[in-house]
């Protein structure tokens, strides 16, 4: 319903595409017979938790039983997409967050001797560690002398990732992957190792980089009862297909009725 409301062209956003609107609630047919689902083997290899793998394999069985055609294929993009994503996202963030400089927007340090110090102190005191980390990374990849090696290269790789996905969609309606290589970790448990934390995004950022619609739905739990996610990726403007596939899956496994969420103390 939300998608129904936000879909469509926005003349105040020139990056939005002018296409006819679709009623997405009508797409929920509870039927996936004949749906071609591609399962990229690279998304089930090294680094993927065994329990996650098993839960996904069970889910694939569910789709098979519902009449979908499942096939394994090769889509070697995840590692590139992750690096690309962190370069582009940080670059944009470093620029987007520039306006929080204490002049007009956000926190301003109470004491400063000059303009430079006002900027330095406001931003040092106002931003958290993760944000600062991304600003520094983003500033670095845009700096003269590094731009070509990082930002420009990342944009080129982005095109390659898109091309790889396009090839996949020549054969499949949907690409099925885990949402995350592991189940959710405790808040703060990876703050000292940001790289490991970024790796948790490895399955999902490909979608952002390639500009594709994706949906993540719960498909199982590990032995501690932590939920495991499944990601369905569709081709550009094929939201109906993934919404229907997700809906059909949920109707079949009734995940929500069988698993009440529990919160760790």
């Amino acid at each position: 319903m939300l998608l129904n409301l936000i879909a469509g062209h926005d003349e105040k956003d020139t990056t939005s595409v002018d296409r006819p609107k679709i009623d997405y609630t009508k797409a929920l047919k509870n039927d996936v017979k004949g749906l071609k689902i591609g399962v990229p083997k690279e998304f089930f290899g090294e680094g993927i938790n065994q329990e996650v793998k098993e839960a996904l394999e069970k889910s694939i069985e569910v789709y098979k039983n519902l009449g979908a055609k499942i096939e394994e294929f090769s889509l070697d993009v995840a590692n590139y997409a992750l690096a690309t994503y962190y370069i582009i996202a940080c670059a944009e963030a470093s620029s987007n967050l520039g306006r929080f400089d204490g002049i007009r927007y956000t926190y301003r340090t109470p004491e400063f001797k000059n303009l430079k110090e006002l900027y330095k102190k406001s931003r040092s005191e106002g931003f958290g560690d993760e944000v600062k980390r991304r600003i520094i990374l983003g500033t670095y990849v845009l700096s003269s002398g590094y731009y070509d090696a990082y930002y420009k290269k990342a944009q080129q790789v982005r095109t390659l990732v898109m091309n790889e996905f396009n090839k996949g969609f020549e054969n499949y309606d949907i690409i099925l992957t885990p949402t995350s290589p592991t189940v959710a970790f405790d808040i703060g448990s990876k703050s000292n190792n940001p790289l490991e934390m970024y790796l948790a995004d490895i399955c999902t950022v490909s979608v952002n980089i390639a500009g594709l619609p994706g949906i993540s739905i719960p498909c199982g739990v590990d032995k501690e009862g932590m939920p495991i996610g499944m990601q369905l990726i569709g081709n550009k403007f094929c939201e109906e297909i993934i919404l229907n596939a997700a809906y059909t899956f949920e109707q079949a496994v009734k995940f929500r009725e069988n698993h009440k969420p529990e919160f760790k103390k």
Partner: protein
Amino acid sequence: MSRENYEKIIGLEVHSELSTKTKIFCSCPTEFGAAPNTHTCPICMGMPGTLPVLNEKVVEYAVKAGLATNCEIARDSKNDRKNYFYPDLPKAYQISQYDKPLCEHGYVEIETEEGKKKIRLTRIHIEEDAGKLNHDEFGGGSLVDLNRAGVPLIEIVSEPDLRSSEEVEKYLKKLKSILEYIEVSDCKMQEGSFRADVNVSVRKKGETKLGTRTEMKNMNSFRSITRAIEYEVDRQIDILEDGGTIEQETLRWDDVSGKTFSMRDKEDAQDYRYFPDPDLVAINLSEEYIENIKNNLPELPESRKQRYLEEYKLSEKDANIITSSKYLSDLFEEASKICNNPKAVNNWIISDISRILNETEMEPIEIPFDSKQLGKLVVLIDNGTISSSIGKKVLTELFENPRDPEEIIKEKGWIQISDEGAIKEIVLKILETNPQSIADYKGGKDKALGFLVGQAMKETKGKANPQMLNKMFLEELNK
């Protein structure tokens, strides 16, 4: 070694505000002089979460400027972000163009003593202006006025082809007149809508390598630009002559002391971290679009000049002066139509109007009267209602309080005395009080006649018809 052995190398970056009704990325008005921060909205204030939408007029105007300066127009262009921190830049980045400007490889032709010279243009790109800081206006501190933030600019970058401050002035005047003619900018220098960054270096004559340059930012008067270049060239030559080296740095020209001061050197040169603005899409122009603009370009100064030489038989020098400004040129054409005497209109513009503009440091666009009033003035002189010396007084009035010239002369009682009886009375009176002049005239000094006419004009406060005076004095003297 003397100064003559050095060559001056000058390149300019001209910023000209486009006269679109609305700003480049939002629909705020671009008008100058409004109360601070009244022409602002969430977009030009850079509020988090807002998105820019490119004003199509800005692209059209920039393409016009490019075509009028012989540029190649890019079919595929884009907007980039230039990141830097300054309080007048609310987003902390300026949306500009980096590696794909709208226009490239153009030129502007100027007239030099050695003939026509092409000044090559590297590029013309579009960008947004920043806000304005008001320092210490309300007791301490600086306040930001964002009315100007988001006003569209074109930046016109020239190659280092200029060799003297005279060439710079000619180039700027030419560029200004082109932009006025195609009606993309009003180029009001005092309001900062036409300003230049001046890059200066010197090298010994015969050298082919360019010297280290310095840059003087935001100059907005011909006089300061000329003075600043002369000063900077001297300063650089002095350093080189003393065996020193020029530092690449950004300078500020101070008009009061007549000196340049360092603003920042190469050490703290900024890294602007240019990258394509992800909030905006590429600018793709079709052949038809460009062709259409090309076909609808208004007449440019060069072609008007040619027409004035042929149609109105103006001298090259006069035609240059008049066509240097679209406003003068329009004034000339319209007033000429009204009075049917282009020669007279030309004379008024070249002599008295230009003089007053110079004295008052006014730009042609600020001339308070219109072409109808000037045309009428010429008509009144031509039909003998007033003399040309009264005409000058009327012109002064037009500058001070513009209204119908006929009203002015009635109000001031300036109508010319053309009545024969009245003229004769004056002539006789002047002759009576100047016997010496009569003797001089009779003795062969023709100059005495001029003196007598002058006396009569003085007597009548310039209202007597000079031709009639002349004629009647001759009659009386030759009796």
